[in-house]
């Protein structure tokens, strides 16, 4: 008797819907076992991870703050991935956006510049991100260079550029030569939504982005084009869709969103430009995009859920002394189950009773 995976004749719609739930269920069971092995009460531990952060306003705000850049970047990435364009360099576009926007903040520092500063910074961030993303896109379209490699390598270029600027020309003159710009002026700062909290305008922008992406994909011809090119490139060619142009468009949108997320992060929660402004948002967003099944609403939920595990992980460290590594194991297990359960959409388990004949003499 054997258990084999058999390809389904067509995608199972039911499984597609319940697969994330199965994955979360399996994760909870596995984590409970892990917590029990660590000598912690699984119910309390899961409560600290998933329920406690949802019960007070402060943690809810923090979840939104943490999810904001993740969701914004992931939305852009999902458009690329749907169109079969593999932008792996959102991290670099995030950094370039932050740099371009900060340029305006640094140049207007201490001047009489008015309320146009922040909008200009956001625009500059998005534009720079888009242009930066167009480099790998153009290389693919013109020269057939793999955009996976080029976009990834440009991350390091952006990182070093930022590093150079804050150590050299943009360094805070009163900062003992430490690598950071001075704190941005109030007109160059993303406004807070709640006094005394950290929730900022960026979260609203992220929500608008989610809605726009939903409308684009669901209600417009461009959205249809993106999906067709991704799923059936040959059919798309016959339909007269230009796949190359779509690579450029999706890369530009995705770069713009990453750049916007970058400048919002710098002008919002951080307040100045410094090295290490991103704890890998551009890469984590790839996970968010796939966890959300490349669907705008799914991405919003996935982004919030991943943020929840970060906040819950910190609270677990504080209240239950559960090491950070457990949180990482937890995130890894979740991703593993999601991918594993997804294979059930296209495949199904089947028990085979008669063992297959094995040719003798094979080895």
């Amino acid at each position, binding site marked *: 008797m054997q258990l084999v995976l058999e390809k389904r004749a067509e995608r199972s719609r039911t499984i597609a819907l319940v697969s994330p739930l199965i994955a979360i269920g399996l994760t909870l069971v596995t984590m409970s076992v892990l917590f029990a092995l660590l000598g912690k009460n699984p119910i309390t531990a899961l409560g600290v991870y998933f329920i406690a952060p949802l019960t007070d306003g402060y943690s809810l705000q923090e979840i939104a703050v943490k999810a904001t850049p993740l969701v914004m970047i992931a939305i852009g990435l999902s458009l690329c991935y749907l169109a079969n364009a593999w932008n792996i360099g959102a991290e670099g576009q995030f950094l370039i956006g932050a740099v371009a926007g900060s340029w305006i903040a640094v140049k207007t520092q201490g001047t009489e510049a008015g309320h146009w500063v922040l909008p200009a910074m956001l625009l500059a961030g998005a534009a720079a991100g888009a242009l930066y993303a167009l480099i790998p896109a153009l290389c693919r379209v013109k020269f057939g260079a793999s955009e996976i490699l080029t976009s990834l390598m440009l991350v390091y270029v952006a990182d070093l550029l930022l590093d150079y600027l804050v150590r*050299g020309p943009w360094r805070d003159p009163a900062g*003992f030569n430490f*690598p950071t710009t001075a704190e941005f002026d109030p007109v160059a700062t993303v406004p807070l939504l709640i006094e005394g909290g950290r929730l900022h305008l960026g979260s609203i922008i992220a929500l608008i982005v989610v809605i726009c992406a939903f409308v684009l994909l669901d209600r417009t011809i461009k959205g249809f084009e993106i999906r067709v090119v991704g799923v059936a490139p040959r059919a798309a060619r016959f339909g007269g869709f230009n796949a190359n142009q779509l690579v450029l468009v999706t890369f530009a949108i995705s770069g713009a969103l990453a750049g916007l997320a970058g400048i919002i*992060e710098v002008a919002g929660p951080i307040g100045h430009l410094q090295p290490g402004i991103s*704890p890998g948002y551009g890469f984590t967003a790839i996970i968010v995009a796939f966890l959300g099944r490349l669907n705008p609403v799914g991405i919003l939920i996935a982004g919030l859920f991943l943020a929840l595990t970060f*906040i819950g992980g*910190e609270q677990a460290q*504080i*209240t239950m002394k559960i090491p950070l590594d457990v949180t990482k194991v937890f995130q890894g297990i979740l991703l593993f189950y999601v991918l594993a359960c997804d294979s059930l959409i296209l495949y199904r388990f089947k028990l085979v009773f008669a063992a297959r004949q094995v040719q003798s003499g094979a080895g």
Partner: protein
Amino acid sequence: MMKRLLGAAAALLLAGSIAGVAHAADKLKVGFIYLGPIGDLGWTYQHELARQALVKEFGDKIETTYLENVPEGPDSERAIEQLVRAGNKLIFTTSFGYMDPTLKVAKKYPNVHFEHATGYKRDKNMSTYSARWYQGRYIQGQIAAKMSKAGVLGYIGSFPIPEVVSGINATMLGAQSINPNIKVKIIWVNTWFDPGKEADAAKALLDQGADIIMQHTDSPAPMQVAAERGKLAFGQDSEMIKFGPKAQLTSILDTWAPYYISRVKAELDGTWKSEDTWGGLDSKMFEMAPYTNMPDDVKKMAEETQAAITAGKLHPFKCPVVGQDGKEVECKGGDHLADGQILGMNFYVKGVDDKLPGK
């Protein structure tokens, strides 16, 4: 049903946390934010040892909590605030990059006291503390100059910030006091902790002819490379002799425990004040690991230098200090450079054959 279950779970949790608060009301809660994992065997490990020393010293009077691996970006502000909200009244943020986040949270919670390591921004409820590690670097420079056959030192730099630059300069001034023609090769790895990169840098430096490895990064990897190649090296932050029993000459040990104990004591006594502490060998803010793998005369010299610095008779940056460009550096501290000049050091001394990044 589901709703009721959730409600019950939330109520249970709430009750649990209230009970926790009530139980801990008589204890002082002390929180720590760590940059690396507690097992990094370097920077964070030393802070963790000091935390353990606190627990040993004060026992039931305090309760300590730490968050490890907290990145220096926007996440750190949240992490610090989480500690405040969990009831911690004294919070140590143990890396330079936590400076602005700590300040922001400090302004928001005036009744909580903060201690920030190696920064320069302070407030009524936010102290800073750091150590004059350059004193130890001067001693290491002297030892290195005595022990190097090639006359070339290999130096692994993390980030070209003043603390690291002043370390390189102090090393060179110490080395030049023994051998005026000593050379130093520097590799910047742009990280505090990356065993792979640090090991590669150490190998490259040895391949370029250096025969002594010095590091301003936190992992024991360079020490291991030196040991494998039969060369000598200096440890960093912690005792690294077990990684190079035949290689380690000495190591600068971050000994935070005395400072942490005094600050927690002040908090318990109600005498905590915002202060700027920059302690050296005299106040045991750091210590030198035993001088090993060197002849007796070198060991004697190192001990004498250490005694002279401790007694305040010798200052590593005694004037005149000559810059890389051959010009004498303005002497703002009487017969040695002023603290401000060392804290903001952004130039190399004469004899350093390297260009300061970003200059």
